[in-house]
């Protein structure tokens, strides 16, 4: 995999693009888009556009076929055989809320427990706070240990109470980079009759994810973090669960029959896709899955391991750098850090002056920052278009931060 070549496939970052001199290290927030994805969407709008479902004219049939095809592409990417198990949503957040409102409100009650962890993104915390408050169920936590790993003994202890109905945790942490032992978590939870939801926002873009093998009950992800358009995302759910769940949003396309007093729900996946879907975004998401498969998810993972190891080594050459989370071989392409006592926002602003885009703040993971005793951290994240040269520019610019703030050793 040659990131320099790949970079040319991304209009914004290419040598003709406005970002040709930008070092984009914020792919964990959202990735840039290859031309293949933008072209697929444009072509859909220009050649196949109509609303889907029920239209008997040629354009509507082409549009429906484009939508079905996108679902086949996404399903193939995750090795899901049953297309009814692939629900298109706007993003990871909507996917998790769908499960919380539909499954949660119907299945949780007083005495029941939902387990999440201290390293969750707000999107995998707040929906459970809302639903637990509504249902009288309790929210419990797996802690994060000093090296940024989940304390699985907490899970064992909670599961042993026999009260846990759902374990909801991230596949990969968006701050620590930790790749969680999701197979182990699924096995433990299932052994105690609990379901497992995985927040795959940072897993799907970076690791090969085989949902047939993984056996998680729900898996949520965002297309916009995996080369796809904003407004696209997936909720995978096991058919038996999705069929038993009441619908979430009500409206067109999700019903079989409506009378003034009552409605019958449509089959999967339509049951959970009320209203006109964003077919164009689904088409782009499908194209992104094809694009990533073309590069090879194993190759992408390998590339990120290498660049993360390189970045880790280079960063640790700087005095006073503190990196949070496990060593490079146990993490995705995310490194959160602080440079001496310089505030992360100041770091990011100085880097921005050098054309380097990183994120600073709590990265929607306030409880984790609380746990780490931090107000904020700086975060560099890597993707297919990032090279060692990008890391070198990051490190150079961090030296400038040190010299501006006259840190010892600068």
């Amino acid at each position, binding site marked *: 995999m040659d990131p320099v070549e790949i970079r040319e496939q991304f209009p914004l970052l290419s040598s003709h693009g406005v970002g040709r001199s930008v070092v984009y290290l914020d792919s964990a927030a959202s990735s840039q888009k290859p031309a293949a994805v933008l072209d697929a969407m444009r072509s859909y709008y220009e050649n196949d556009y109509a609303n889907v479902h029920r239209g008997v004219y040629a354009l509507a049939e082409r549009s429906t076929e484009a939508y079905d095809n996108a679902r086949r592409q996404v399903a193939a990417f995750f090795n899901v055989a049953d297309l009814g198990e692939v629900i298109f949503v706007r993003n990871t957040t909507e996917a998790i809320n769908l499960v919380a409102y539909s499954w949660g409100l119907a299945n949780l009650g007083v005495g029941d427990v939902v387990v999440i962890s201290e390293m969750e993104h707000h999107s995998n915390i707040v929906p459970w706070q809302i639903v637990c408050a509504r249902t009288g169920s309790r929210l419990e936590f797996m802690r994060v240990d000093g090296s940024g790993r989940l304390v699985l003994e907490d899970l064992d202890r909670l599961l042993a109470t026999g009260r846990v109905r759902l374990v909801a945790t991230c596949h990969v942490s968006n701050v620590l980079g930790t790749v969680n032992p999701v197979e182990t978590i699924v096995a433990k939870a299932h052994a105690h009759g609990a379901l497992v939801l995985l927040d795959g926002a940072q897993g799907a873009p970076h690791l090969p994810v085989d949902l047939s093998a993984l056996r998680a009950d729900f898996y949520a992800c965002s297309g916009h973090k995996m080369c796809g358009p904003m407004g696209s995302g997936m909720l995978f759910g096991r058919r038996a669960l999705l069929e038993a769940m009441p619908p979430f949003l009500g409206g067109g396309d999700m019903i079989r029959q409506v009378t003034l007093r009552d409605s019958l729900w449509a089959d999967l996946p339509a049951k959970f896709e009320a209203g006109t879907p964003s077919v164009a975004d689904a088409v782009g998401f499908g194209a992104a899955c094809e694009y990533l498969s073309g590069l090879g998810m194993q190759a992408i993972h390998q590339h990120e391991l290498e660049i993360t190891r390189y970045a880790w080594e280079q960063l640790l050459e700087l005095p006073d750098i503190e990196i949070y989370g496990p060593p490079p071989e146990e993490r995705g392409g995310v490194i959160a850090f602080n440079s001496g006592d*310089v*505030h*992360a*926002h*100041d770091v990011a*602003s*100085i880097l921005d*002056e050098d054309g380097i885009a990183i994120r*600073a*703040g*709590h990265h929607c993971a306030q409880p984790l*920052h609380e746990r780490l005793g931090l*107000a*904020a951290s700086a975060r560099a994240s890597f993707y297919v278009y990032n090279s060692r040269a990008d890391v070198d520019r990051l490190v150079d610019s961090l030296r*400038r931060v040190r*010299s*501006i*703030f*006259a840190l010892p050793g600068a």
Partner: protein
Amino acid sequence: MSDLYRDQILDHYRNPRNHGTLEPHDASFEDTNPLCGDRVRIDLRFDGERIADIKFSGRGCAISQAATSMLTEMVKGQTIADVRELTKDDLLDELGIPISPARLKCALLGLKVLKASAYGYTGWPGDGGS
């Protein structure tokens, strides 16, 4: 070296003026910028309508802390009416650096806290039918 982190800013950041707390004080207010965790508290002591003493404390980025430090110098000895008339542009002019929209909240946190603190003492504009 940096458009944003000029010497004056760094100087105020490293050597904040009027830093600390006032006990007792006539007014005090604290606020945080939830997105970055910056926190500023301002204590005021009045001599009639005039700010006799001012101290600030908190933690956060160089921009928020330096801006608050400069602000305390601007208003010490001024009246509440002066504080009321102080605009964000006055403070930004004083800072003299190009603040991007994303950093504006950092730069203006101290001003927001100062106004709340002063109004806490006199009542908010529009309160009590005035």
